[in-house]
């Protein structure tokens, strides 16, 4: 019902690295139960992001080899806790490049300062790292002056952009990136497919500019009664906090004051059934005690003018396979034994083309006792200058009171997201 009650925030690796008790109601020694508890859950195969010991709950995430753990003894808002933990990772990464054991030890003073500023009594406060960097700095001693006042941004309605930013040349770079998620059954039927799009900005604009982004959004065109060209139906849209959500809700206008530098302005999900851009047909035959024969056919199901780059088809092989032999009609195949994969790489894959890869592995005569899991074939690729949904940036209006001219640049790219094809073996 209420907020994160008590967070002892802890990042640690086998031993507690650093912690911060935001409220006094959970004993700091409780954290000693975390690691054994984690091991126990792991052993039972019942890993869970929430674990309890007595009346203390541990909510944790893992980042490289660090565990970030929040403890609470109340009924907390769990999504807030996880969102905050991920925010921590984000802030620390922006501060220290890498979030790891070493960087925390090297900067423990700043880490303490940040923890102090990020959350108070279990309530997350200012978590925008760009703004934080204005008053919590790594070379504290040198910047005494800057630190002596609170940036107004901290408490402003516009809490993501500072005043007084200056650029010689005012530009905005817009990247429209669409990821294709596909799940295909072993018999070749597409179980689910969707497009997750993301519009990223690199803003290099002076002052406090007002931006408006125009897309070929079907709902917008429906509202305004316009009907020209192709429109896109976005199933769901998520915005950076800079976008005025109520404005979008009422008239589908995407208006905002952008954060400086790089940011993700929005993401969207499109449900329309897309033809998998790279279609894989595979025949994997396993002859127990002797060999595995793999035949994979990849077909580019997109426009002839487009080219998919850096295509990787990852085909699982049994963990006890040996002596690989490959034959490919293009690109090259490599055996990655530590991942039990054959990775077939095609640097450039034109639309409409079809390629073939054959692989042959030996199997030991003594069979592996353990049952093997059945990982799917996965595919990675990117197709530049093209969005599969047909989404387009129609305009980007930039208005600043000083009246400068600014240039928007747009790039489109389509890439593989979670692209899985189940196999029979």
């Amino acid at each position, binding site marked *: 019902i209420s907020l994160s009650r008590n967070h002892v925030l802890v990042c640690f690796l086998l031993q507690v690295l650093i912690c911060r008790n935001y409220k006094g109601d959970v004993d700091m020694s409780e954290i000693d139960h975390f690691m054994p508890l984690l091991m126990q859950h792991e052993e039972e195969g019942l890993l869970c992001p929430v674990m309890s010991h007595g009346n203390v709950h541990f909510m944790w995430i893992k980042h490289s080899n660090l565990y970030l753990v929040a403890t609470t003894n109340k009924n907390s808002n769990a999504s807030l806790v996880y969102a905050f933990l991920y925010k921590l990772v984000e802030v620390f990464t922006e501060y220290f490049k890498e979030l790891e054991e070493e960087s925390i030890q090297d900067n423990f003073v700043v880490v303490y300062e940040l923890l102090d500023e990020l959350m108070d009594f279990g309530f997350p406060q200012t978590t925008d790292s760009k703004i934080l960097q204005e008053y919590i700095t790594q070379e504290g001693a040198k910047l005494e002056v800057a630190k002596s006042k609170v940036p107004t941004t901290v408490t402003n309605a516009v809490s993501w952009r500072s005043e007084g930013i200056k650029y010689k040349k005012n530009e905005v770079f817009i990247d429209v990136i669409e990821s294709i998620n596909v799940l295909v059954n072993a018999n070749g039927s597409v*179980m689910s497919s969707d497009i997750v799009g993301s519009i990223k900005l690199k803003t290099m604009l002076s002052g406090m500019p007002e931006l408006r982004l125009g897309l070929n959004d079907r709902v917008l065109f429906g509202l305004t009664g316009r009907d020209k060209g192709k429109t896109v139906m976005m199933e769901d849209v998520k915005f950076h906090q800079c976008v005025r959500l109520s404005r979008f809700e009422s008239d589908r206008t995407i208006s905002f004051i952008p954060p400086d530098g790089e940011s993700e302005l929005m993401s969207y999900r499109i449900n329309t059934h897309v033809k998998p851009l790279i279609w894989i047909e595979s025949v994997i035959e396993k002859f127990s005690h002797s060999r595995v024969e793999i035949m994979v056919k990849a077909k580019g199901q997109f426009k002839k003018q487009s080219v998919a780059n850096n295509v990787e088809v990852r085909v699982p092989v049994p963990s006890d396979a040996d002596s690989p032999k490959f034959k490919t009609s293009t690109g090259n195949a490599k055996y990655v034994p530590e991942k039990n994969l054959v990775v077939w790489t095609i640097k450039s894959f034109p639309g409409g083309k079809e390629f073939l890869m054959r692989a042959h592995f030996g199997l030991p005569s003594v069979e592996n006792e353990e049952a093997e899991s059945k990982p799917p074939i996965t595919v990675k690729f990117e197709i530049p200058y093209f969005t599969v949904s047909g989404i387009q940036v129609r305009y980007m209006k930039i208005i600043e009171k000083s009246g400068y001219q600014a240039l928007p640049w747009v790039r489109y790219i389509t890439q593989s997201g979670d692209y899985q094809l189940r196999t029979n073996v």
Partner: protein
Amino acid sequence: MQEWANQLCENRQFGSKMTDSKYFTTTKKGEIFELKAELNSDKKEKKKEAVKKVIASMTVGKDVSALFPDVVNCMQTDNLELKKLVYLYLMNYAKSQPDMAIMAVNTFVKDCEDPNPLIRALAVRTMGCIRVDKITEYLCEPLRKCLKDEDPYVRKTAAVCVAKLHDINAQLVEDQGFLDTLKDLISDSNPMVVANAVAALSEIAESHPNSNLMDLNPQTINKLLTALNECTEWGQIFILDCLANYTPRDDRESQSICERVTPRLSHANSAVVLSAVKVLMKFMEMLPKDLDYYGTLLKKLAPPLVTLLSAEPELQYVALRNINLIVQRRPEILKHEMKVFFVKYNDPIYVKLEKLDIMIRLASQANIAQVLAELKEYATEVDVDFVRKAVRAIGRCAIKVEQSAERCVSTLLDLIQTKVNYVVQEAIVVIKDIFRKYPNKYESVIATLCENLDSLDEPEARAAMIWIVGEYAERIDNADELLESFLEGFHDESTQVQLQLLTAIVKLFLKKPTETQELVQQVLSLATQDSDNPDLRDRGYIYWRLLSTDPVAAKEPPSAFVEGSRGVQHKRLPGSTESESPDTASAAAVSDAPPAVIPSQGDLLGDLLNLDLTPPTTTGPPPPASSGMQMGAMDLLGGGLDSLLGGDLGGSPAIGAGFGAPPAAMPASFSAPVSGGLDDLFDLGGGVGMPMGAYSAPKTVWLPALKAKGLEISGTFARRSGVIQMEMTLTNKAMSVMTDFAIQFNRNSFGLAPAGPLQVLTPLSPNQSIEVTLPLNTVGPVMKMEPLNNLQVAVKNNIDVFYFSCQYPISMLFVEDGKMERQVFLATWKDIPNDSEAQFQIKDCHLNAASNKLQGSNIFTIAKRTVDGQDMLYQSMKLTNGIWVLTEMRVQAGNPVYTVKKCVYIYIANMVDRI
């Protein structure tokens, strides 16, 4: 810890690196003294270095509390970084050195008036974290000032400090009037301050559940909604969580709040989205369902929920847990989104299991084929827990979607063929559940199950198999051998298996008393004399006594017992509820049976046999699957959703108990009223001049005017074009006008209930009569009545409430599709044990007319033959609750006396489907 710090200096070359980690190197002996000296140094830089070293030692868990006075001495500095470090130290050690902590108070008070707002905020923030009573008194004045500070950064920090102080000394906060100041901050011009004030107030309100602290009214709500648009993502969450506690006055206010909250569904922060969903789910309750906006809102909820599934796994997990609740409350929101819950290979196990659960909840006839194909795929994975759950899921599908049961069974059989041990065991447990839900339907698979008997080593699977053998003992030739084989190691079995074995053998004995006398003796003596387990002993004694002292019970047709046990499938004896296996509960939760009160069966042994369904597993831990995933006292969306979902959650005993009850509620004494009904049918018409169609008796007086202050009710029952009707004449024999009629039925054997209100639209004047037809349905609560066809009715009018009871003809319950295929009829006829048979004499009936006329009453003639000069009619009928009755009627030539030779009831609702 010391090693860790030492190791640190060994492993790294610090010389070149000017980082904080160098401070960790100084933890060596005698170092406290060194530090003390450095802390008292005149040089600022040296002081600062020393404090850093102290903090470093503190971080690695070393006790540096001895340095308290020295560190506090460093507090008065204008170096912000140093000040922060000292404050950090204070927070850690003030509690262990309360007297010394007072030393710091002066500086705190001074810092609260510092021109630098950062320092003012820091001081007020830190003071709140020092949980020492003596200090709190000094905190009040500075806090009061900071709450009214000109800088919003200080105000927002002070707002939180009120909550901190309240946690330490609630009375003080109230006495000082801080709560009112905090409430004023809700109207602050700065959204961050509003958000923190809301957060602090919610926090305080939580510890005073009854105080109307938040005092939410339309004005404050409006302020909150305005701040919602402007504050940070976290502030939005505080405000949304607070809004969720508000109860709007009417549906219009509810709608306007919803309209202003919906834009939050587009926020990039998943936690904001989930909090918004929580608010919307709650306020949606207030909206009338026919409102256009209600539909719009429903549609808006699905896409953001689906998008949450591409968040980080932990957030996905929280989202899934909440979706699970939402799906139970409003399945329509996500009914078309089944595919997004399909499990991906790389999902973490907790996400997989949660998705699986939601898939079952969303399973319906429309998507069941797809779901089953997926589940089968999962069941061939290698992750044992996941596979087990997938197999269970197949069983739950069978129970939830009746049409899919056959497919599920064949999928399970395929899986059994894989011979993967844990898959087989899981499948058998699940098939037992399917058998319970659809008795006598799939027993053709029993042979396959028996083949795997030896491979079962898990108690649950063994118990399930034993149950199956006992239940279907009459169809398994070597049932006695199979059960006997378990007896050998009786004492090594788990309680669950022992109890099951005991019950199964008693069942077997009732079915085949002659051959199994010895076996039952053996198990009873094992259970009662050689066992230390009180549950087992008690049950053994009860069976024993019943079998030996109640010859009547023992001689009763065995089916009666079996039926009894089916009828009350999930009835729980008091005390066994808490130990009930979660799996059963979940299976029950997915079944669509309406919550119904279980008929109280008169048959004690029947009830007892049924104990085996809920073994008192007081020993042993709960199954691991649930313990791992259970959230314990904490639910993920802060307790809100589940409470607003209220009693509708599945798995609650009330719903569980209703599982499968109505159709199976068939009492043993059924034959009597049937004969009565038939008698009526035959008696009356004489076969001449009766119009085709259902027979209906003339009205009789049910409620004499004398007993009902002048209201006389006479009536009858009829079945007209498939609808059961209660036809009544209401007569007003009083002196005054009667109005406001209403009718209600008590629970009855077939769940009869009014399908609509009693339609008496005009007031009934004195001496006036009115004809009323009340359509009935059979979905009401079930309770066995004596006689079976008794119906207790309450009629209310403006004068009083009156009660009467009447009896309805059983023929009214014969449904239109009661005609059985000839083949099925023959097969079934043979299968029915002779004990389930009853004979009646019927007088004065004409054969030729009988067949047609009976058909009019939904009694269908299946076949006719003549043997030894006797005409024989074979007939079938089906009752509303799915029970079939098969009859044979003999007609002696030239003698108008007819004998219903065989009146049989069997339990299979869907016998026809099987063949």
